Structures are given as structure tokens and as C-alpha cells.
């Protein structure tokens, strides 16, 4: 069948009936994992991820998921176990957050270098210290330069759908990189919402034939060196190392179009579409915009609707794919506005602003046009980012249009909460 005929045949068929259920974000992630049919999962529980791995374990115990589960002694072992599984050609999954992710860091960095398409949900949690077991993006932000793809979800439905898509993105032969699906601890992890559960047959058709690890399979009949010691200052020199790093960067850039293709295919087969890289909400005729990441976006969209009713020319830009940073898509969105307020749920200590804000400044440089902007930091350690908080961001950002001077320091949204 030619590609054109195949597309026509697929488009003609509506997705099969989807069961409507109530699920918390952690359960939705587990259901998404089950739909993707991994061969092996390895887990170690940690708040606020614990109920996710409990759901995964229960799905396996109930026979609704046919995977080996390894209850490892810690997160370092969890990811090391999965590396072995992935090297043997298995589709693999785990989830962690905060201190667990920190304990996992050594194999975490190695996973992307070995081009292992492991999917890892980060149920995002703020950094310690001071002590906190609540949500915040600091853990995921801290590891953003480790070569993993990182996507952030807005709703429980997006968690479920994105979890399945993550495997397809990771395993794409032009990508072959591990993926973090980031879901906000507390508001998404424990927030129970109405979700539609795709039919397994539709997901099976979407996933296609499993071909996980075609480039480095541990196969006794095909012996090969994996993760070789590269040349030092003598001998072969650094070219092998450079080839690895360059390949990782190439894979990250390839991921931008693959993420778009996979989301488009999901929309066609499952009937739900999400902006793959950058979502533009009421932006086309906007004069200024706010930028959001993760679960804060819902309340922000409600606030934007209210501000629109009040006559403000406001739009919203949501980042879904944070790594690789969607430079071109964001450049296109930012090109439409004259002032910007960026809300981060974590801290960029080096620049004294939010990390997403700091990355956005790089895109503004490429845009070649000065846009006055403010960095907002809110929602740390489980703090709420409510519609009134977002209205403050909208009002102060709008004031930049009328000549107000942007503060050089970040604005802390929950300073008095």
C-alpha cells in the first residue's frame, strides 16, 4: 500500500469508542504506560510519584500489563536495570522525582549517551533544602542539560496521551533518545479528572511494530562493544567522543519534527490533538502575552479569557516541549507580541530569574527585536498559581506596553501567600 493510500485508509476510520473514567495524573500515566506495552519496568517509590508506581504494579499484578517489574533497591539501580533491558531490545519505563532523580543522575546522563529510548516520568517536585515534598519544576529543570527530551503536561488527559506518545518519539530511528514526561507533583499527580481512555487496538496501530533497540542490541551472536572508552590525549584522540555528542545533538534537533509528526498521527488515530512544541492561545491578534509551563496553564487560560472579556489584547504561549527547546516555534509565537510575562515554577539561580525565562531570552535575541519582559516565579513547593495570580502577571505585563519599566529582579508570585 502506498503511503497516500495508507493515510486515506487511516483517516477514514474514526477512533474506536473510548471509555470515560476518573483518574488522577499518576494513574493516567500508569494507564498510558500499559497502553504502550513495555516489556520491563523498574521502580522505586518516592513522593509524589509513589501512587504512579503502585498503579503500574497493580496493572501488572492484575494481568492488565504484560511486563517484568524489578523492584530495585534505589533509583541508581532502577535506571541501570532498565539500561540492561533496553540494551537487550526491551521497551522500558520508570518514574521518579526530586531526590530520587538526583540519586539516579549517574545512569541518567549515560542513558542519552548510549541512545537508549527509555521513558521516565518525572512527577515534578521542588528541590530540597528547605524540606518540601511538594510539587515544583526544579528537579526536571536541574537535569535539563543531560540529553533527555523533556515534555511538560497541562492536564491529566495530556499526561495519559503524552505518555504513550513518548515511547514512539523516543524509539524513532532519527531520535533514539530517552524521554521525560513531566507532570506536576500534587496538582496533576493527585488531581483526579475526567479522562478518555483510548482503545488498545487503536494504540497498537499507532505504535506499530516494536523495534526498540536496533543499533546496540546485546546479542551473543553479534558481539560488539557498547559505551566504549574513547581516545584520550594519546592514541585515537577525541573524535569518537565528539561523534557521540554531535549525534546526541542531532537526535535532539531531529526530535523537534518527530514530536510534531507523532502528535499529528495521534490526533488522526485517537482523535485528540495537543500542540506538540508550543501552543499559541488567543495569540493571533494579541499585543502582549504570558508564557506558561505545565499545570499552571489551565488557570492561566481562564485568566486570559477573563482579561479578553475586559478588552485586553492578551494571548498565551504554552511550552510543551522544553528540551529540545523549540526555538523556531517560539520565535514565531513571540514575533506576534510587544510585551511578555513568563511564569516559571522553578528558580534559575545563576541568572536570578526563571529558567524558562532565561531560555526565552535566547530566542528573543534570535528574533532580533527587543521585547520588554518580566520573569515571574510562582508555584514553588506546591504553592498555588491561581487565576488572581495570573491576572497580576497580565496587568503588569500590559503596563510594559505603556512604558512601564520591567524590573531587573524576578517577581515572586507567592511571596505573601
Amino acid at each position, binding site marked *: 500500500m502506498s503511503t497516500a493510500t495508507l493515510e486515506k485508509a487511516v483517516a477514514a476510520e474514526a477512533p474506536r469508542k473510548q471509555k*470515560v*473514567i*476518573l483518574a*488522577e495524573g499518576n494513574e493516567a500515566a500508569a494507564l498510558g504506560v500499559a497502553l504502550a506495552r513495555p516489556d520491563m519496568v523498574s521502580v522505586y517509590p518516592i513522593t*509524589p510519584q509513589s501512587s504512579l508506581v503502585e498503579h503500574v504494579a497493580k496493572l501488572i499484578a492484575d494481568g492488565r500489563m504484560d511486563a517484568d517489574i524489578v523492584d530495585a533497591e534505589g533509583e541508581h539501580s532502577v535506571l541501570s536495570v532498565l539500561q540492561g533491558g533496553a540494551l537487550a531490545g526491551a521497551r522500558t519505563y520508570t518514574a521518579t522525582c526530586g531526590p530520587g532523580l538526583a540519586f539516579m543522575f549517574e545512569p541518567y546522563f549515560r542513558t542519552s549517551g548510549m541512545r537508549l529510548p527509555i521513558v521516565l516520568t518525572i512527577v515534578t517536585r521542588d528541590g530540597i533544602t528547605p524540606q518540601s515534598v*511538594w510539587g515544583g519544576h526544579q528537579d526536571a529543570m536541574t537535569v535539563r542539560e543531560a540529553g533527555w527530551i523533556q515534555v511538560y503536561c497541562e*492536564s491529566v488527559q495530556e499526561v495519559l496521551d503524552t505518555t504513550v506518545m513518548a515511547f514512539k518519539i523516543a524509539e524513532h530511528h532519527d531520535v533514539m533518545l530517552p524521554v521525560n514526561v513531566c507532570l*506536576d507533583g*500534587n*496538582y*496533576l499527580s*493527585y*488531581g*483526579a*479528572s*475526567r479522562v478518555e481512555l483510548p482503545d488498545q487496538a487503536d494504540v497498537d496501530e499507532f505504535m506499530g511494530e516494536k523495534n526498540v533497540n536496533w543499533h546496540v542490541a546485546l546479542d551473543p551472536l553479534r558481539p560488539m562493544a557498547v559505551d566504549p572508552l574513547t581516545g584520550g590525549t594519546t592514541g585515537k584522540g577525541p573524535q569518537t567522543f565528539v561523534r557521540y555528542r554531535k549525534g546526541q545533538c542531532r537526535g535532539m534537533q531531529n526530535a523537534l519534527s518527530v514530536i510534531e509528526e507523532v502528535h499529528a498521527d495521534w490526533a488522526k488515530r485517537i482523535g485528540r490533538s495537543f500542540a506538540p512544541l508550543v501552543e499559541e492561545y488567543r495569540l493571533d491578534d494579541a499585543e502582549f502575552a504570558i508564557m506558561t509551563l505545565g*499545570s499552571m*496553564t*489551565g*488557570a492561566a*487560560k*481562564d485568566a486570559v479569557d477573563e482579561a479578553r472579556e475586559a478588552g485586553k489584547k492578551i494571548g498565551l504561549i504554552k511550552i510543551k516541549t522544553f528540551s529540545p527547546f523549540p526555538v523556531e516555534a517560539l520565535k514565531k509565537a513571540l514575533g506576534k507580541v510587544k510585551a511578555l510575562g513568563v511564569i516559571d515554577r522553578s528558580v534559575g539561580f545563576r541568572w536570578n530569574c526563571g529558567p524558562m525565562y532565561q531560555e526565552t531570552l535566547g530566542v528573543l535575541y534570535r528574533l532580533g527585536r527587543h521585547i520588554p519582559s518580566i520573569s515571574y516565579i510562582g508555584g514553588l513547593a*506546591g504553592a*498555588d*498559581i*491561581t*487565576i488572581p495570580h495570573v491576572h497580576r502577571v497580565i496587568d503588569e505585563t500590559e503596563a510594559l506596553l505603556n512604558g512601564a519599566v520591567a524590573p531587573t529582579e524576578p517577581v515572586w508570585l507567592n511571596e505573601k501567600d
Partner: protein
Amino acid sequence: MYEVRFHGRGGQGSVMASGMLAAAMVEEGKYAVSIPSFGFERRGAPVVSFLRMSDREIRQLTNIYQPDCIVCVDPTLTKSVDIFAGMKAGGTLVQATHHPLSELALPDCVSTVGLLDAVKIALEIFKRPITNTLMLGAFAKTTGVVSLESLKRALEDSEFRDAGLAQNMTALERGYAEVAVHHIERRAAA
């Protein structure tokens, strides 16, 4: 949008009740979101859970500060927590208590009250003061925003099995049947 705030103490199942109510609303074709507040989940410590219901998709994932309805599953909680904080005018209170309406100090924002001696009934059914499903039955009768049948189906789909399921079915029914619903006429301001 209809917003409910559940108040209880750790171990009484108020977070679970909030989730089960959301499931019953979804069962009726509504959109619902249930978000527990978070703290260290100690037995006996005050806990809160938030529930939103709408005919349309609910986008905001935040706590609730101005509820339409407050469900308090514990009779002693009002001594330590201001359960009425931010409540909208014309609001509904569903309260576990053995006191009659005349003995309760209610703010002016409360217009409808459902009172249930839930601890006494819970001791009869469960031999323990677990009031959550009783209070769901009382909520359904007091507010009318969800049917008893939908709550029963949500209970059937929950983790409860066998004797636990039967006891909680009884609790839903008795909460619905035995709650005393009052409508308070507020005198217009002079």
C-alpha cells in the same frame, strides 16, 4: 461551575469521598476535578479536598477559595478550623453533627444546611467512626447535584469489595435517607 470543599481529619476518608463524588459526576456525563490539599497525612490532622464540577471542560487545576458547598465529615473540626473561610453567599453546608440546627453557630453565607448524625450511624454500620460515604449520601440529598444511583455506581467501581462494599452501600443509603435538610430564611438587611 460548582465548587465543593471537603473538610475532615486524616483517616476519615474525606479525600476518597471527594474522588468518589467526582467519579459519580463523571458517571453522569459531567466534567469533574478532585484535588486533595497536601500536608503530612497524619491520622487525625485536619485535611481538605477540593472538587469542581461543570458541564464544560475544567481547565484550572487549583485549590478552591470560594466554595459553593462545604462538606464537613467530622463533628469536632469547627473548633480548630474555620471551615467557612471564603464561602459564597447562599452556600450549602453538609455537616456531620449530633446537634440540632438551633445549636450551631453558622455565618450568614450559609443558606442550606444538611445535618447528619454520621458518627452514630457509622458506629452502627462499621463499628468505627468512618463517616465519608454517609456524608456523600447526605450531600446528594441536600444539594441534589448528583444522584444516589450515580454515587452507588461510583462505589461499585471503587476498591471496595464484599462486606466493605455492602456496608458502604448501606452508608450511602442511610446518609441520603436520614440527613435533615434545612433552608434558612435570611432577613433582608434593614
